[in-house]
């Protein structure tokens, strides 16, 4: 588990701060996220964990009047640096959202959206990409006979796996997941978790979750955020069994507040 300590981190923040208007929502966060592993970020609502995640692919750009300080580096590139190609960056850093958000197109078109948009493969190779990604997202067997059916007709869990397939089709190296299971039932959650476990050998995965059992099940390392600060970060097992910080302990044992 510690073998990736030697590899340079896939995502690294150094004294990274973030403001929505006047409100500072991230306070000098310094964090290192290992490549090809699952890192969970836990913490109470409003602690800034989603904000942090949405800084990594600059989804926060949608909100007007934000500013940052400090450094956030993804695979050697400064995310808020002036030379960043945002479109290419977002292609390399995929994201899965809290609510499944398939496009109201066919299943096929959903998965083919990214590669077609970014011209990653020739058009004739798209069917192959779609099949590979749907297989990877453990959805192929359920949808292979109805690729042209509307994606909105799938169940919530299937939609979320479709969104994962859609993100994978873009050939990212980093996958951000913002509470990907919070809108799913336990069975669907289990499937998505198995999938995350599968994917970690090839992708750097950062998963924000409210669900501590989920963090314990899927992540090798876990970070605990509170009030915009990274309180503690370590091996998942250590965080949950022997937290060094009393705030972490209070949170994971449910004695929070």
């Amino acid at each position, binding site marked *: 588990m510690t073998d990736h300590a030697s590899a340079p981190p896939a995502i690294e923040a150094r004294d990274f701060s973030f403001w929505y208007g006047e409100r500072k929502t991230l306070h000098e966060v310094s964090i290192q996220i290992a490549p090809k592993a699952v890192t969970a970020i836990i913490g109470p609502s409003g602690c800034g964990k989603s904000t942090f995640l949405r800084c990594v692919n600059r*989804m926060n750009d949608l909100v007007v009047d934000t500013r940052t300080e400090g450094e956030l580096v993804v695979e050697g590139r400064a995310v808020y640096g002036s030379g960043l190609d945002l479109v290419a960056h977002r292609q390399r850093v995929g994201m899965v959202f809290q609510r499944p958000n398939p*496009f*109201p197109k066919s299943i096929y078109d959903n998965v083919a959206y*990214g590669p077609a948009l*970014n011209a990653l493969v020739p058009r004739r190779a798209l069917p192959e990409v779609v099949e590979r990604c749907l297989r990877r997202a453990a959805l192929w067997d359920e949808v292979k006979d109805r690729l042209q059916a509307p994606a909105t007709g799938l169940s919530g869990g299937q939609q979320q796996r479709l969104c994962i397939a859609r993100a994978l089709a873009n050939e990212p190296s980093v996958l951000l997941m913002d509470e990907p299971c919070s809108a799913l039932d336990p069975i669907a959650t289990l499937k998505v978790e198995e999938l995350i476990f599968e994917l970690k050998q090839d992708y750097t995965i950062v998963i924000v979750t409210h669900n501590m059992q989920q963090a314990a099940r899927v992540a090798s390392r876990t970070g605990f955020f509170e009030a915009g600060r990274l309180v503690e970060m370590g091996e998942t097992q250590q965080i949950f069994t022997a937290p060094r910080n009393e705030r972490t302990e209070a949170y994971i044992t449910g004695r929070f507040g």
Partner: protein
Amino acid sequence: MGRFGASFITTSTWDPVAGQFGAWPAIVGTLLTSLLALSMAVPLSLGVAIYLPEFAPGPIRRPVATVIELLAAIPSVVYGLWGIFVLIPFLTTWVYPFLEARLGFLPFFTGPVYGPSVLSASIILTVMIVPFIMSVSREVLLAVPSGQREAALALGATRWEAVSTAIVPYAKSGIIGAVILGLGRALGETMAVTMLIGNRHEVAASLFAPGYTMAAVIANEFADAAGGPIHESALILMALLLFGVTVLVNAIARLMIWRVSLGRGNT
């Protein structure tokens, strides 16, 4: 009414005194002005509806949208007056000579330039239906869940790609609804068109020539149906026909939506 027969629709002579009633010019005029207005209004209003929330600088969004929506509240007779005193002088001085000079090889832009004409009426109709199409499609676009935009952007779409490949397709059926609403209004609009179209029972190739619409015929002639009861029945039949045309056009439009959504495997 049966006495008019099919010639009511197919012939072009409208002479109440002689008892001849051919509604063809009015039917053509109605469809032509509405479709012309639609073809100018749709790109314009969709452009504004997409530009305002997506790309316009924050401070101008609300005011511009409000002003355009206010246009919908202006009585059509005011549009008619404005058309006569402002629009027509402007068009006959600047626009029509230019069109004739540049596009005169087409039959649509030839012949003497009168002020009131099919084109003038279409342009005033455009101004009148833009607020409808714009405000409805703007609402529809704003109602697209933010997850759709985020999904597209997170997959590496530029802002414009997110709009054109995710947001507009999501809102497509609502936008078509907005267009049909505009079309319905254009087909039935009476006052402003009556004041600007020239009111001549004639089908001319040139858009500079005056024409007539069904609604305008009814409004103009009903009060003093000079030809007596037969003239009156002709106008009532015209109204029925207008109703029929409106229903037909809407049905065709709905059929088109239905086929589009069916073909794309949507909803």
